[in-house]
């Protein structure tokens, strides 16, 4: 378990954008919670203030990637094919948490759902559904 936790934090530590967002992950068995501390650098609207929608999207996308890493142990980072983000409540100046659920892992495609929340798990602030390409056999644009 600590092996997986070490691999995970090493992975996040290596990604400059993850360092910029200041995200970290906590593991309980194979259940992972990603944590996004609040900071001024992630604010979208300073008047409210509210966390930038793009940051919440990024954070949930990273949660999905990290969960895939934990479950599948991919050597190469899976590539995002598409994401669909639902914004349910504004992201307040608080710590944000996210958990991912891998709905399907096929030969080439993984489908992952993520939910992000702040004070109450039952009141998510945003949700994401994503497809990932697991193997970079060939880029889709190269036909």
């Amino acid at each position, binding site marked *: 378990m600590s092996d997986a936790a070490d691999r995970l934090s090493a992975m996040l530590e290596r*990604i400059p*954008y*993850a360092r910029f967002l200041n995200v970290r992950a906590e593991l309980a068995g194979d259940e992972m919670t990603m944590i996004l501390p609040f900071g001024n*650098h992630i604010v979208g609207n300073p008047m409210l203030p509210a966390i930038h*929608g*793009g940051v919440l999207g990024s954070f949930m996308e990273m949660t999905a990637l990290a969960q895939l890493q934990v479950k599948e142990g991919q050597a190469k980072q899976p590539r995002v094919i598409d994401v669909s*983000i639902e914004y349910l409540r504004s992201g307040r100046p608080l710590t944000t948490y996210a958990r991912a659920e891998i709905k399907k892992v096929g030969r080439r495609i993984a489908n992952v759902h993520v939910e992000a929340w702040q004070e109450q798990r039952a009141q998510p602030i945003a949700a994401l559904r994503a497809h990932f390409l697991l193997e970079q056999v060939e880029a*889709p644009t190269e036909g």
Partner: protein
Amino acid sequence: MSDQDAIRHNMAQGMSQGSPYAREMGFELVSMDNGAAVMKAEYKDIMVGDPDTGVIAGGVVTGLLDHACGSAVHLAMKEFKIIATLDLRIDYMRAAKPNKPIFAKAECYKVTRSVAFVRALAYDETPDDPVAAASAAFMLDSSSGRHRLAKPEAKS
């Protein structure tokens, strides 16, 4: 440009300069029209999502598209309203080229009383070879919910 146009353009411009995240990322509005915006971000090391290739994180593209779409909504409205992203769907066609600026071109093609609809493309060299495509819906005048949230007695 009429006074009203100027005000709207200031709003859209202010949206990128007033947002700390957009400032950190270097999002810059480079072209504005009625209901249309082009946003640019220079390549920065903090954007990198894959340290092996130097390709920026998908999340950075997500943020740029969200921001460009929001700006297009401001440029499509006759008056200033607080807006909030309701949903954002993105298809990623290919990786953005490392060390190149990335652009997002957004078009707000319909504004109703409560909702605005936007589509956008992200590209590094030409919109004909996009990095990603987005479609988004925004709630207009989304402040009412937040006022309720702000009241301490309503917060449980």
